């Protein structure tokens, strides 16, 4: 994972092929960016901060990325892909739609709580890292809409929910989580699972059933 502290590559004959070294350098730069952004914030972070944290040269940086933004985008993608894998695995083991939704919420919150620097990179710094990152962030969040929409099949009421229900619901939770992370309270995010569960399920299962399932997660 990108957050791991990496020592310098041993010099001389280390038995790695050229491709392996290049791949390794790219990963180190991504990890270096995550470390440097956590310390300085995206806008203030410099190439020197990143290459120093990654223990590689500027030349190597430019062999891998054309800009700071490109490196940030790569880091963002690595973290999102990791979360995607965690969620896919947890959701696959759940018996029905409500428990799939709960499993997804649990995984995301647990990951963000255990990796506060990466949580900050994804939720807070991404907001000021330029339009390409903002678009990628929006796409990543929007990925959660279709699986949540499947909850509409669980509804007893005939009248359809407003079209933006899923967007507002996910946005509300992302926004609340971002505020907690910006305030330095990422570690406490996992405590929010019961509240998140009730909020997510309520439009689909009704408030009483949502609350019952939320209580089970506590």
């Amino acid at each position, binding site marked *: 994972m990108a957050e791991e502290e990496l020592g310098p590559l041993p010099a001389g004959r280390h038995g790695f092929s050229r491709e392996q070294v290049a791949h390794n350098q790219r990963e180190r730069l991504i990890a270096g960016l995550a470390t440097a952004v956590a310390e300085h914030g995206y806008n203030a972070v410099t190439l020197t901060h990143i290459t120093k944290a990654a223990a590689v040269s500027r030349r190597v940086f430019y062999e891998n990325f054309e800009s700071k933004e490109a490196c940030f985008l790569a880091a963002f993608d690595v973290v999102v892909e990791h979360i995607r894998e965690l969620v896919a695995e947890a959701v696959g083991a759940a018996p029905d739609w409500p428990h799939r939704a709960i499993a997804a919420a649990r995984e995301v919150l647990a990951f963000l709580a255990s990796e506060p620097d990466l949580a900050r990179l994804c939720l807070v710094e991404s907001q*000021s890292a330029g339009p390409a990152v903002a678009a990628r962030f929006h796409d990543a969040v929007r990925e959660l809409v279709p699986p949540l929409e499947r909850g509409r099949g669980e509804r007893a009421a005939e009248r359809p929910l407003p079209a933006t229900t899923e967007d507002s619901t996910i946005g509300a939770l992302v926004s609340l989580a971002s505020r907690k992370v910006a305030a330095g309270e990422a570690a406490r995010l996992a405590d929010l699972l019961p509240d998140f569960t009730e909020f997510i399920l309520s439009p689909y299962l009704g408030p009483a059933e949502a609350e019952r399932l939320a209580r089970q997660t506590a």
Partner: protein
Amino acid sequence: MRALPGKASRQPAGPQPVSRTGAAADQRRRILEATADLVADHGYQGTKIETIVRRAKVGYATFYKNFDDKQQAYLTLLDTAYELTARRVQQAYDREDEWPDQVAAGLGALFEQIGEHPNVARACLVEALTAGPEAVARHEATLKRFVPLLKPGRKLNPRRAELPDTLEDTLTGGVLWVINQRLIAGEAEALRALLPETIEFVLRPYVGEDRAAHEAQLAASS
């Protein structure tokens, strides 16, 4: 309703009596407006005093007479814009009698204010989280001001004892999300069309979905 206090526009050319305090207030307002425009376009970290004074058409001396540094100018912008917006929302809320109508009116006022001043809104809502701990604290404190406007809705819910403690924070976050996405996309004017659904989203946990949908219809037809 204006985004910032001070003269509405630059003094027209030609000889006319301009009070010294009026001119000073005008300069201060121009600095804050320039700060809002630049932070909206380039982010807080990407904004420099050099570009603020150029855009505001004031000298460095005038800038430093008003503010110690960029941060103080930006925090003043936050304080001013947050206060004006919160007051406008509160006034709209207070004009109504029934709580669901109060919330609908407050949200309507909020969306109008943002639609009229998208750059100030973007600078103060989207960019605040990356502008340092003091800006984050002010942003958070402002969002918290909306909590007491929502809390009375709990009395309308027979299951009020079971509502999560974070409900108001979550709903505030949802409204902020809807606003921020439109600001980032440069489509503040699209907020108006999203008002009915946003009203329904906020009211539903308190009054149930039928009443919430009814209020949304009222907003859509007004």
